[in-house]
């Protein structure tokens, strides 16, 4: 069965609502419209306005009420319409979502999922193409997940909804229409495990979300140069499965981490720092970063020059091989 990531996510929500009647889905335009990306399409029709409903335009209120819902015993799955419109909820996320279990000495967990379509490449206007993963990944108490394929999108979203703690679920919106031949349902993937998507020996590419496809493309092309690139899909950004990464880089001796968001103090720095700490003696070159530039996300007409490409990744591999 060929499914898009959008369809896989929609199915995951549907199946989760079927299997657990404490799951409620809400946010801006997720009800009648089915979401601006149609990820919640049909849920309100199927489950009614008590299980899937629209809210006023108030992101802090949406996340804040979800905390109250979780406190009550429901499992809210809320949508932030775009990456750039999730920022008004950051205070609720940092001050409460991330801290509630710890604050209450383990008494009150908050099983909730905050879904955020993120990243660029769709020709959108300002604030619709942000990559905010570092803000979330740096926040202790959050679990941050980003799938790179339709199958993972299904499996990880199911796992996120079943998870006992809050999950920030980052959906690579430019890959919503990415297709995969996969039979749904697939089993829930455990949160916290990276995946070696392709094995190789020349160097390790480390990517997540929208960049998984790009890294795979780079690895495909690289064979023309006789390079066998190992590709790791991080999948869970926090907590990071550094074992899988370290094992790979111990073997290859070289690593390139790829992400769309700005480089400075970005998520890639953590991967580079962690790997260097863990496998310093095995590194033939520094861990290199292929990332977005340190600029506000650029306008649509020039965004393709901002986004990491397979070419840039291969340039970085070549650079790593020069050491």
């Amino acid at each position: 069965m060929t499914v898009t990531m959008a369809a896989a996510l929609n199915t995951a929500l549907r199946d989760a609502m079927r299997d657990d009647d404490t799951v409620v889905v809400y946010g801006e335009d997720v009800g009648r419209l089915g979401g601006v990306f149609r990820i919640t399409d049909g849920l309100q029709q199927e489950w009614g306005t008590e299980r899937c409903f629209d809210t006023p335009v108030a992101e802090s209120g949406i996340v804040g009420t979800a905390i109250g819902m979780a406190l009550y015993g429901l499992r809210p799955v809320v949508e932030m319409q775009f990456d750039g419109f999730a920022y008004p909820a950051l205070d609720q996320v940092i001050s409460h979502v991330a801290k509630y279990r710890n604050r209450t000495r383990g008494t009150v967990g908050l099983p909730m999922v905050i879904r955020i379509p993120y990243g660029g490449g769709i020709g959108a206007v300002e604030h619709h193409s942000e990559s905010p993963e570092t803000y979330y990944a740096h926040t202790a108490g959050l679990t941050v997940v980003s799938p790179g394929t339709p199958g993972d999108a299904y499996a990880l979203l199911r796992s996120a909804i079943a998870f006992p703690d809050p999950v920030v679920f980052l959906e690579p919106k430019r890959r919503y229409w990415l297709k995969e031949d996969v039979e749904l349902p697939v089993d829930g993937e455990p949160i916290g495990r990276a995946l070696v998507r392709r094995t190789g020996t020349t160097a390790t590419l480390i990517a997540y979300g929208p960049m998984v496809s790009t890294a795979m493309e780079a690895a495909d092309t690289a064979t023309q140069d006789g390079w066998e690139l190992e590709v790791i899909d991080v999948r869970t950004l926090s907590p990071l499965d550094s074992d899988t990464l370290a094992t790979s880089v111990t073997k290859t001796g070289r690593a390139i981490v790829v992400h769309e968001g700005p480089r400075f103090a970005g998520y890639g720095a953590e991967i580079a720092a962690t790997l260097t700490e863990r496998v310093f003696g095995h590194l033939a070159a520094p861990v290199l970063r292929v990332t977005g530039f340190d600029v506000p996300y650029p306008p649509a007409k020039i965004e393709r020059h901002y986004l990491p490409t397979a070419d840039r990744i291969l340039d970085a591999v070549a650079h790593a091989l020069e050491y």
Partner: protein
Amino acid sequence: MTAVWRDVAPDGGLREPCSYELELDPAQLRDLYRLMALGRRVDRQAINLTRQGALGVYASSLGQEAAQVGATVALEQDDWLFPTYRDTVGVFARGVDIVEILALFQGSWHCGFDPLRCRVAPLTTPLATHAPHATGLAMAARLRHDPIVALTFLGDGAASEGDSHEAMNMAAVFQAPVVFVVQNNHYAISVPIDLQMHASSIALRAAGYGMPGVLVDGNDVLSVYGATRAAIDRARAGGGPTLIEAVTYRIEPHTTADDDTRYRSAVEIDAWRARDPLERFLALLRESDMVDDAFLATVDAEGETIAARMRDALFGAPDGDPREMFDHVYAAKTSQLQAQQTALDRELSATEETE
């Protein structure tokens, strides 16, 4: 002429209609019509250009021309306007170049005009976030005893955001000369106004801030103009902020990317088409013999000229230089950005060579 609107009685009812002697002569009234008509032409052209790919997306003002034009025309030259992505026609009526306004939707740059020269802030996408900017500018003007006023547009959806509350409360506390014009067009994308709020009017919120609240027929340009003008005059005179709710309707889908058949009926849209702000005003002008066919033909012609210019400027426009993305992040380029720009430069040169 006389503009009519209603102050909201804080118990939700409407006070007796207020009337305001408009100091508008026939030429100014004609110009109001002209701006609305040109705005509509510009709006149609923008939709067409989007269909043809010259704009990436566009949020139409169709049906809201009276609310936008009536409000912005009430501003003086030195006053400031803080618009949203919805307010193309209002910004156009303020005299900003339409091609520059559309840069945001074209994707050539986030803001195409010079806000300081135009006294118009960039079209803002994150809802309500520009409202505190308007309040802040007005606070600054008051601190400096500068008799200017800030006007900010908000949508009915945006009014649910925390920022709109903070902006209004602070404006009242500091008696800042700012006018909040909420265009209640009945929808926030797919969400109708009765799922957005439980009160009968957004203008009712004014009482909670200790400022006047005004409910106005947003499809009646004279009432919008009159209510806004009165609020601006009061603000300029030191009387503090006002909240105006202009009740109107978005005729087009939310943006060119939206499918509104999913959430509203054609019947509903048609009912509002019947209250078209241009036709209403035109009927009035005709009745009082203030316009004739020659005038309308001139307006049409002007509209076609502008539309042609939009086509020329936007169709097949070049993408712009990607190196520019590094140029405006800071006043002085950091060495980090310089290095990234150089890397891109090298990449672009290599591509050019191989081409």
